């Protein structure tokens, strides 16, 4: 009986240790993911800025001019009531 009890105690201790180990590993992984999320968010901000720069009014106007495009002039648009 004491032997069984001793084995049970050791088993529970071992299981607790394993769980604790898993939690630690999970903590590391979560931490890395969190850092990745933050990095990606920064990247997203940079890319949004890049999009805004590339689609800025002045740049699009300049590019459109090269292809002979421009805003609609008077008479080119007919608004139907």
């Amino acid at each position, binding site marked *: 009986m004491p032997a069984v009890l001793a084995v049970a105690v050791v088993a529970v201790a071992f299981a607790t240790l394993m769980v604790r180990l898993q939690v*630690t590993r999970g*903590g590391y992984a*979560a931490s890395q993911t969190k*850092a990745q999320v933050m990095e990606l968010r920064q990247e997203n901000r940079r890319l*949004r800025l890049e999009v*805004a720069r590339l689609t800025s009014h002045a740049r699009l106007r300049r590019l459109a001019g090269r292809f002979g495009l421009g805003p609609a002039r*008077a*008479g080119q648009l007919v608004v139907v009531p």
Partner: protein
Amino acid sequence: MNSGWRRRAARIGALAAMLCGLLGLVLLRLILLVSVDGAELVKLARVEHTSALKLAAVRGAIVDRSGRPLALSAQAQSVYARSAALLGRTTSAERARLARALGASPARVEALLRRGAPFVWLGRQLEPAKAAQVGKLGLAGVGLVTEYRRFYPEGALAGSVVGLAGLDGQGLSGVELRYDATVRGAPVKLRLYHDALGHQMLYAPVASDQAVVGARLELTLDLSLQALAERELRDEVAASGARAASAVVLDPFSGELLVLANVSAQADPQDGRLHDGAIQDAFEPGSTIKGILAAIALADGVVRPQTRIFCEQGKFRVDKAVIHDEGRHGWLELGDILEVSSNIGAAKIALALGARRYYDGLVAFGFGHKSGIDLPGEASGLLGGLRQWRRVGLATRGFGQGLAVTPLQLAVAYAAVANGGAIVRPYVVKAAYDSAGSAIFRQTPQVLRRAISPAVAHTVNTLLRRTVAGQHGTAHLAQVADFTVAGKTGTAQMVDFRARRYLKGRSVASFVGFLPAEAPRLVVLVVLYDVGPGHFGGLVAAPVFREIAAAALRGLNVAAPGPRFVEASLLGAVSEGAGQQASSAAGIEAADLSARSLAPAAADGRAPDFAGLSLRRALVLARRLGVTVSASGHGYVVRQEPLPGTSLSGHSLALFLAPDGRDGRPASRPSKTVGRANRARRRASG
């Protein structure tokens, strides 16, 4: 044997007792550690295993009414130095390399380091490539800090409204300053757990960095229209030699500002963001005030539209001063006075009204105090104390001399005429949203007070149309094709505030108006400061008004009221708008369009032949006939119902279009002239 066993047992017992004693001591120590020193030790462990990371606040984006970004924040790195460490542990050659990486001169970096300060910023908010270069050098005493930098992707466009944010993320001017608390966000401190080797661990929930993002502000400005207005102003400043110019486009019913543009002859991007002339600069309104004077006088009952006023043949003495008109006028009605912009007529109305009533009327229209726009630094304008409103002062104020208004005040006053008499509070920020996209607040239109009755507003609206469309009107150049414009020109002398006198030959030219006059949608104001002689408001400001107003109406999809169309403007627009490549085809088509006999169709109600026309031209033709059109497909008209020559019963017409102008069905064949036009079009495009 027994004695040996006993000795061994005694030794084992002693060892066991010793071990038990030691265990007891360990247990005792453990109990003491937990119960006595526990709290202190936990605190120490926390210090050892945790570190704090401060995440800088991210300013929210500022976007126009369509969501196009005007201000954004992104990470940038700043480089600092601990002077003593850097100077003591690096060579001058290494520091020169550092300076090159920063894009600065070595002498400047040395001077900064030897200034005596222990901490020095070597570069703030650098481009990522530069910061990476500095990091690669790995010099002792040099560190990198991540900060958020404000970017303005549209450059100087709408700069005076958006304003400026400083290096430390604080608003300095414009919307950035006024809504600083909303857009700024809050820095967040994260507590990170790490092990003995410094690896980060995540045991406790870590706060999200979402919380630090400031609100996204949505402006009422229309970026395309703002760009157009700034471009038109810039061109006119260059052409007229003006020192600066401003334009305001306002929704007269809501107070939303679609454009608030300022242009200076000496373009300084920094100053352009710090100063907003449209709300901060006051000028003498000149004749533009006559429209408001007319409204006040009509509301007071001192004049009626039919009241005739003698304009003294161009010369009128008030005490010691003599007031002149541009021409010699005799008896004029109120509408005539506005049409020819008679100073004498306006002066006589002001004198009849009296100082107190005119003053109160101007105050009711919003002059002399701030309009309440949600931008910082707004000026109140200047009406002067009533004591200055004696006979001469009152007479000259009748035609806009001796008082100062901001462009925005003038636009708001005309908005009241346009909207039926209500003074609305102008605003530039439509709404603010948090990072999850939920609205923090939405601006709602706000009527501050009533300046005049709707009936008076309607009368003034009708009279102001004569300035633009009347035979002797001063603002024919403000006419916008298809639309009726009501407005008033102004040309006032520039004031030298230091010398307290008018500058000879320098003036402020302006035009303020609204359209469509029958159902106003927009108030547009254009002011050009410090223009030379001969640059009247009707000559320099009115054309800018026309361009801005026409583009604004197109942008808002405002249809012209009724099927009116001027033949000449139609043909001009067609040949101008079609572009060089297609000009020959467009010319043929335009000629073809004008050649189609509308008179018989209009007379006996028969449908003309629309075949071969583009949708745009078909719509123009239909409008002239007063016919409602429904169209399907794209390209050129291939079929129509009712058929050409048949009755236009019910005044509606269905058009069917195909890209190549050829109908798969044999129902209707293009006429010979249309066939020629199509062939010419294909030749031109091929």
